[in-house]
């Protein structure tokens, strides 16, 4: 299990090559093994230039997709994973693990320790998951806390050294590159015995533990008879444990109030040392019933030095926090729109912000808007064909607000106005953006007494909570809207 080469490529749509290799690293000892293992089916790792071209073509990132190209557009050329075969010099380089995130393409070629013809199934190649972890690790390092291009460049310039540390011979030792960076800095400290490898040093100072629960709520609302609305909460619990000692033991418990919604689909950080089977089996795949495990959710762990995501979970709360409908009627060049939003009474009515964005796709620029809002203000972005309804910090006492108006559009010119592949014809949506501090929709919380620390000194424990919206869509109920199987199914069950 090793990597033959790694690349970082920035996608630059305007440039002649459409991209630049920002970083690459080859592993010749692994390559040597590849020649032996792959035998006659061995294909060498190409130089950066040909690799860049082949990868961008395969990922459809070159500009010339005007004409049909069989090698790229053929219906039988189907990729169902982020693993590609790149035609290079008459041969196919496989497997190439590659994906794009924030305009950066991450790619590597794992070693396959056997002949490549016939190709073994991906599941049986250990280097595949290692390649992914390496790329995720690099991505995490580049984008953790990074704000601008110069910071990105600084981090890119640190990569050669970091990979020399974390992956000196192509076999990944630690996907957490920040940890590798720390261990370079901690190098002079003499370590006690049996220090975990994922902990670069020991903490010295005042003991403190911070736990923050962030819940994202997403929703698809249709206001239709035959399609059920859906919503889901996704939680992440982030911790930072500043505790002395090489391996302090900590147990963190998450609790729910009596009417709280059970946590499901819990994935934990590898530093968690054991798991209750009730946590392992509580899953959204099963039909909901009252016997669902409702905590407390205990996580015994040995914390790493840095801040880490203790666990992720999902939850199905009984009602969406904001229920709404959106109606769009087309009248010649005008659209008549009506929006109604209602905050559920159980939700904390104190927002950091709350706004509804109403975009219009595949049309010309907005030329004229007439509107009436019962609450808040409406902003119009004509060129972007976008309305933003700023609702503010609080819903009114009635908990219900509305917007109605007509929007007039100018002539459509292809380049300027936003294109969308979903919003065809009458299909349209509005998207809610909001944030509520010191609140979770599931009710999930961690209090001071829920943290047990087996280390010297009584730590200061701080906890934080917040709820934010994510992919919170309300679809035009007067036109078709994209649905998931769940939406159709739920209606059947309810009817």
């Amino acid at each position, binding site marked *: 299990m090793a990597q033959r080469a790694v690349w970082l490529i920035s996608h630059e749509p305007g440039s002649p090559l459409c991209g630049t290799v920002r970083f690459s690293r080859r592993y010749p000892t692994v390559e040597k093994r590849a020649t032996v293992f792959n035998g006659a089916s061995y294909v060498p790792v190409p130089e950066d230039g040909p690799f860049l071209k082949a990868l961008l073509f395969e990922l459809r990132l070159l500009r010339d997709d005007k004409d049909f190209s069989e090698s790229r557009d053929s219906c039988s050329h189907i990729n169902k994973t982020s693993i590609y075969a790149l035609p290079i010099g008459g041969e196919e380089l496989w497997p190439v693990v590659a994906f794009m995130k924030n305009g950066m393409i991450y790619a590597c070629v794992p070693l396959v320790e056997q002949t490549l013809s016939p190709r073994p199934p991906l599941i049986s190649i250990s280097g595949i998951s290692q390649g992914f972890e390496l790329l995720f690790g690099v991505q995490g390092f580049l984008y953790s806390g990074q704000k601008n291009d110069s910071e990105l460049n600084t981090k890119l310039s640190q990569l050669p050294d970091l990979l020399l540390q974390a992956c000196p011979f192509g076999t990944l030792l630690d996907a957490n590159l920040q940890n590798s960076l720390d261990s370079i800095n901690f*190098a002079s400290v003499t370590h006690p015995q049996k220090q975990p490898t994922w902990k670069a040093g020991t903490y010295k100072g005042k003991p403190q533990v911070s736990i923050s629960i962030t819940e994202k709520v997403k929703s698809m609302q249709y206001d239709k008879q035959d399609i059920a609305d859906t919503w889901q909460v996704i939680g992440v619990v982030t911790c930072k444990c500043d505790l002395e000692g090489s391996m302090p033991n900590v147990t963190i418990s998450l609790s729910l109030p009596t009417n709280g919604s059970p946590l499901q689909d819990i994935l934990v950080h590898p530093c968690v040392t054991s798991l209750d089977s009730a946590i392992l089996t509580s899953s959204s795949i099963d039909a909901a019933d009252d016997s669902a495990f409702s905590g407390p959710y205990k996580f015994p762990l040995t914390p790493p030095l840095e801040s880490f995501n203790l666990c992720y979970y999902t939850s199905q709360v009984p009602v969406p926090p904001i229920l709404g409908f959106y109606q769009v009627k087309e009248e010649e060049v005008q659209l008549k729109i009506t929006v109604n939003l209602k905050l559920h009474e159980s939700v904390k009515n104190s927002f950091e912000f709350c706004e509804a964005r109403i975009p219009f796709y595949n049309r010309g620029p907005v030329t004229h808007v007439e509107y009436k809002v019962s609450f808040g203000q409406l902003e119009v972005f004509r060129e972007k064909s976008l309305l933003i309804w700023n609702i503010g910090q609080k819903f009114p006492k009635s908990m219900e607000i509305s917007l109605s108006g007509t929007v007039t559009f100018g002539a459509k010119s292809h380049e300027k106005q936003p294109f969308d592949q979903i919003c065809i014809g009458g299909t349209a949506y509005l998207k809610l953006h909001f944030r509520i501090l010191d609140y979770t929709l599931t009710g999930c919380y961690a209090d001071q007494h829920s943290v047990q620390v087996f280390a010297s000194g009584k730590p200061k424990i701080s906890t934080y909570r917040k709820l934010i919206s994510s992919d919170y869509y309300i679809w035009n109920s007067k036109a078709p809207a994209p649905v998931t199987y769940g939406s159709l199914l739920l209606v059947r069950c309810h009817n």
Partner: protein
Amino acid sequence: MGPTSRETWAQRLGTFRASPSAFMAGPEGEDLGRHLLSDLRSEKLSEPTKVSLLALSLEYPAQLWPDAPAAEVAATSLLDTLVLLPPRPSALRRPLLLAATTALAAGGALGPTSRASRRLLPLLLGLASGRDLGRSFGPASEQRPLQATAWECLRELESCKPGLLGGCLGLLRGLLGQEAAVQPLSLLLALALRNALVIQARARAGLQGLLVAGGCPTEGGPWNWMLAEEGDAHLQPQAPSWPAAEEGECCLAMLELSPEEARELRAAVAQLLDISYLLTPVAQAQLLWLLGWALRGLRGQPPVLFKPQLVRLLGTAQLTLLHAVLALKAAFGEALFTAQDEALLLRRLTLAAQHPALPLPAHLFYLHCLLNFPENWPLGPAGEEAAPLLLGFQLCRGLLPSLLHDPMALLARLHLLCLLCVEDEEKEEKGQDQSPRQYLEELLAGLRQRAALDGGPRALATLCFQASYLVARCLAGQPVVLTPLTHGLAQLYRARPALAPHFVDLLDRVGPELGEPLKVVLRQEVVSRPGRDEALRWHLQMLARVADGDAQSATLGFLQAAAARCTDCGLQQALLQVCRALLRAGVGGGLADLLQALARQLEDPDGRDHARLYYILLAHLEEPKLGVALGPSLAAPALASSLVAENQGFAAALMVQEAPAPIRLSMGPHRAKGPVPVLQLQVEVLEQVYSLELRFRVERQLYAPLGAVHVPCLCPGRPTRPLLLPLQPRRPAPARLAVRALYTTPSGLTCHAHLPPLLVNFADLFLPFPQPPEGAKLGFFEELWDSCLPKGTESRLWCPLGPHGLEALVSRHLEPFVVVAQPPTSYLIAIRLPPDSRLLLRLEAAQADGVPVALRTDDWAVLPLVGDYLRGLSAAG
């Protein structure tokens, strides 16, 4: 020459990295490696510059030092540089160790005769085990990182030369108890242990106390290369792919461990697993793959050792850890995972494949793992993607595709949906949930709607056709799915004829279940709706693919109407393409009129000439010849060809003449080797020919279509080499090959001839099995013999012998297939019958006039053929 400056190096390295091959071909290429080594010792260059030079040598040793002697010299020089470093902190020590290791391992110089290897290995082991190496090895602050690096270097060397550290297993175990560098040590120990097991198993030796021996080469003492020399022939996969691992496993099963050795081994593995939580997640995963596959084949090593780790691992979101658990599942199956465990693992996998906290590439990989899940009791054929039995529809609901998904996720989920639809069909309609099939139809309709969007990106169209292809492939047997799909696609074409290339591509790739009805509706779509200029171009392209003998009058009517509007050259060419397709399909009467009209009315002279040519061909050639004349490989008029070429008496040159056969073909001796049967055809040349193309057609389609054989030139009287014709039988059966020859005469005419058919005999398909090693032959045969039943059949025959007896008969006809021979009375014979059958013969207790033959085969259909064959042998002599 003095040292190069920092700037020059920076520039040189930049140019090198941009294209190493171009740089090495240039003037500076040859000496780059030498300069780099000498400048590493230059006092004028700063440390960062030297680190960048070392970084280059870590990546491109093969370019810098292309052969083993050069690599040896480089490694020696790097080691010298390391030793000569002043005893103050330096950033060069780590990269120098890595570079020397890389140079030796990648350059193929590592070995007992290499002086650099003999220096490097004790040095690494000394550094790693924390032995005091004197002040030259830098200040104390550097010891820890150097120690970890030394372990990694040793592991890389062990990976490249399995068995290298086999002699140090005892030492490594001892250190594991006390060392702080837990991770590198654990990984190295696991690797060396695994390699030692495999090498010793191959040599049929036990562990010979390797696990407890404390002895290890001291500095200056000789290194123990014994195990590495034995393992040299076989590079060991550290985490073998599963099918490959199963092959290697029979070898591990041969390892006989004494009870003490087995106990020591178990203790070592348990020790490694117990401290595995101290390792980073990726390193834990490596450890599990290594240990899992190391123990899998071994007798008496129960996998329960892994059990305590599993719950902890199943709870995480780490890709490598879950993947390693799947590897353990594949390695041990039911021995480690009960049916309940399997169900839990499947649920965690299903959950991970859709968990909103994980990134898309991880979702897709988990989905792949689901469809390739190593089940305890798989039902379907191995190697094919399928939904595991325990993965019911209920579990998959969250994994169904929707239009909101990214294209790759949509296709992956669509595949799952198709597999569920297959099952749904099998289970009949249950009518509880919305039927998956209905959902599939709605989804496809949505995809088509997006593809129809005028001016939308091509990726959307591609996605729609990929989805259609996937559905057609998975659900080929379900007309209820294919019929709406066909009509939906026809509608899509109506809405956006510019997608014609996608339709042509789809028709080329799907089977007849969708292809045939789609062709019909698309043709109707085209001929019933003549469009304007832009659409006309696409219509003609479409029609060239879908036009055939059916609906002639409508097609011709459309073409006649179109002809008037084909004003530009491109459209006329497209029109002629359709005519050509009709010509090949054997459309007569009306086409002649159209071609005559085109020959008169087209503006483009090239087009007029082509129309006239087609008319001549139509009027003068019979249908099969027309097909040949217009076949793709012939020198038929390429429509893009220039007028000049065609004006040189093109009609005569392009007419294909029927002629008597210029050559005679006969079967040469049978070649019983290689992965497929290959016929050797002897050629007897009667007339001189050029550019000979022999086309073979297999009657009754018993074999896959055969490729044509091309010979540039044949002259009578000159010796010819036999022609090789590989066969791909679909069934192991004799067949007749019809043979046609197309060739050019010395006078430049293109001719066509029928040759007498060739007969492929049953015995021509025989292939031997790979030879098992000496000593394993009988077992190999017996295993094959047993494997035939219960699927196949067994029979007994009397094979009459000629005057020369059994020995002569075997040596003449069956020699390549003999597995075990005891001449003159007994032979065990194994024959591979492609595509995937086998025939096993026991010829034992031969008598004067015949021999009783016991035979087994896994394909009952070959029995009569075998009988005929054996009875015919004595007649053949």
